[in-house]
């Protein structure tokens, strides 16, 4: 079972991202469970969403405390939310930011992937909404879901032009991350 935690802000589509990633994994024949960190938060406030992907039925119903993957939708969260908390030693963090992993200098030995999702979003989709883009990035980074799965999930949720643009943007992120340029080296114990 792999566990994913997504950090974002109300209105940025973190919950949708978890849901759609789950859908893609489901279509790929996996058992999945996606859910928000149930809050009363309003637009702009920090939120979390969770996703489990497994090869057998998922029975546990608790939040995720030791994720394999952490996705950070908004770089400002790094300052106020403990996004790295509980991340497994061999875990991966994907951060939407202009900065390189080195510039970010997170207090972790895990692999850190960064890229400017808002830039892609603004350019390709026309709005700074990064959730589908981060889905593409996750697919590439994790190898858990083929890109076609992401595409199908996006098309199941969005229609027409919006869908097309989201797929294109996600694809760009997918290719970018697949390229591996944006990752930190997974540092060994020093």
């Amino acid at each position, binding site marked *: 079972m792999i566990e994913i935690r997504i950090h974002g802000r109300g209105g940025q589509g973190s919950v949708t991202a*978890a*849901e759609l990633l*789950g*859908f893609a994994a*489901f*279509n790929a024949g996996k*058992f*999945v*469970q*996606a*859910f*928000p960190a*149930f809050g*009363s938060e309003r637009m702009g406030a920090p939120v979390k969403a969770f996703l489990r992907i497994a090869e057998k039925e*998922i*029975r*546990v*119903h*608790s*939040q995720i*405390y030791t994720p394999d993957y952490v996705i950070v939708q908004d770089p400002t969260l790094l300052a106020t939310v403990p996004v790295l908390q509980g991340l497994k030693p061999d875990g991966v963090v994907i951060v939407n930011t202009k900065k390189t992993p080195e510039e970010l200098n997170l207090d972790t030995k895990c692999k850190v992937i960064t890229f400017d999702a808002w830039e892609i979003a603004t350019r390709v989709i026309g709005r700074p909404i990064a959730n589908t883009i981060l889905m593409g990035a996750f697919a590439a980074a994790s190898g858990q879901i083929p890109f076609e799965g992401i595409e199908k999930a996006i098309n199941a949720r969005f229609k027409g032009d919006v869908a097309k643009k989201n797929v294109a943007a996600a694809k760009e992120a997918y290719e970018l991350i697949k390229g591996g340029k944006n990752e930190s080296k997974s540092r060994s114990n020093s």
Partner: protein
Amino acid sequence: MKKYIEGSMAVAEAVVLCKPNVISAYPITPQTHIVEDLSQMYANAEFKGQFVNVESEFSAASVCLGAVVTGARAYTATTSQGLLLMSEVLFNMAGMRLPLVLTCANRAISAPINIWTDHSDAMALRDSGFIQLYAENNQEAADLHYQAYKISEDDSVRLPVMVNMDGFLLTHSFEPVDMPTQQEVDDFLPSYKPRHYLDVKHPITFGSMVGEDGYMEVRYNLEEAMKNAFGVIEKVTKEFEQKFGRKFGIFIDTYKMEDAETVIVALGSVVGTIKESIDLMRANGIKVGLMKVRTFRPFPKQAIVDCLKNIKNVIVIDRASSVGSGGILATEIRSAFYGNTSVPKVNSYIVGLGGRDITIKTITDIVGNFANVKVQDSQFVELDHKYMQAGDEYLKTI
């Protein structure tokens, strides 16, 4: 067909498959998605009955009452404050022997206001005459609705049914759920044919005042109907298994009980977490099993006693407490053993109130600590008072 679907949506679709004539509900977190999904199905002409958006839960339940006495199948959903607000109507529907299915998206009760899951709400209605069923996961939540209508409308029962599913944990989780076809549901659930209803051709007077000379007998009949429900629940659950191929424990269900020395008793979504915990503990050689309570009303004393009588240690996990008395499920289980010769040690834990997450560690810690706990009290698990002391400093200054 297996669908990847949010729990609320699964329930909404299940309800529409049951073809209620009238749906009336009032939004309240975390039940909202169910109602919103039903609204959308109504807007899309997928649900073809009447959808009545009311001004309060009191009216939601009352609209359902009016619909049922007119011969219609009705549905509502609520939780917490909403359940309390409509409680007067709910006691009344049970007393009037009106079938209804109500989904309770379990949530804590104010004060303090808190929108997260626990079972205080449904438990507060345990005297009402509602049959109460608790879902472990979204598959069960959806499936319970087809069964609930059939149980509720059975002529020997005719009692409203509350299907409980943990707020957020189930309502807001996307999981794979096998959804039947309309044909399958139609084959299982016949249309509602009430024995009596408001009809200008055969006028009747419903809801009369009954004095000292008859009230007690009417209430006795209600108790008898609850007893009848045992048989009907059994029949319906088995028929469901036969038709849909999904098997449920009827009143209770068990997991790895064979050689268990310690058995955890629980209801709701924590059951899944407990199963995982058990696998883990068994891997470490600890002989733990699970008894899940699926039917809480009528309370299946016999099934519970039969299941637990040869167990050494029993751990009851309550997600609600009767303030000043303790764990509600624990109290009833202890009482159920009354007069039995072989009696396990039953410890009572209050866990996961107001959405406090219950993790595998919570469960394994409880099991690990079992021996250290006195028998009588209900233990609150995993308290941390620091957070709530935040207000103290200011208060000391005034």
